[in-house]
């Protein structure tokens, strides 16, 4: 098992994981990397937040009825 990802590789896998399930070996390598790398751990939190934020935005834009012009 390859367990020495660079941050660049880890980032690519994390983004790929947003779109489709990545292979188990990659997922394990990713878990190991994120545990020891504070930068990638933050990147994971950022991605998680962006996912929640986009969902909230969609909900807001579909239902919000306050149409006061804003700029």
């Amino acid at each position, binding site marked *: 098992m390859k367990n020495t990802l660079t*941050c660049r*590789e880890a980032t*690519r896998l994390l983004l790929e994981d*947003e779109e489709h399930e990545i292979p188990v070996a990659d997922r394990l390598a990713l878990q190991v990397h994120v545990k020891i790398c504070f930068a990638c751990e*933050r990147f994971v939190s950022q991605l998680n937040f*962006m996912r929640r934020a*986009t969902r909230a935005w969609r909900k807001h834009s579909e239902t919000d009825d306050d149409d006061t*012009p804003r700029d």
Partner: protein
Amino acid sequence: MSDFAQQIERLRPQLLRFARTQLRNDAWAEDAVSETVLAALERPLSFGGQSQLKTWLVGILKHKVVDQLRRHTREATIMVGEDGEDLDDALFLPDGHWREAPHDWGDPDAACNRRQFFEVLQTCCESLPPVQARVFMMREWLELDSDEICAELAITTSNLWVLLHRSRLRLRDCLQLRWFNAGRSAAEHA
């Protein structure tokens, strides 16, 4: 104009803005919204409020947006390499380490109830290169799955992943710049 038609007209600017964000083409967006309005007028229903009406209209609009994309597939799918710049090279050193570690966004979720934040998010989506914006919106806003998006735009799944990968990195940068650096994540209302 009937009350119903007037209510719909009031929502038109909002519908148009969302159609534009997704289609990145004013003429197509106008068409999608006009078709939505026509479809709505053909089967008037009564709604408790603007909010319910808007939810219903947005539901119709999503289909019309997909219709537009289908109709304009060839034009919609300009080459995948629309932004030449290699984002990954800008983010990482040659040895694969971050040039600058991602910032700590703290506890950002309070932002999700804030209108201002959604404005920033929308601006960030609007500033994506057109094809990236389109696939991102198809994915996140129209909630289409990968196969549908690839079929609509006639691109391969690996192209799609590259586009989404870039769009998410760009959005992250944009949020960092326009929201987190701007210090707007804190409760700044004095």
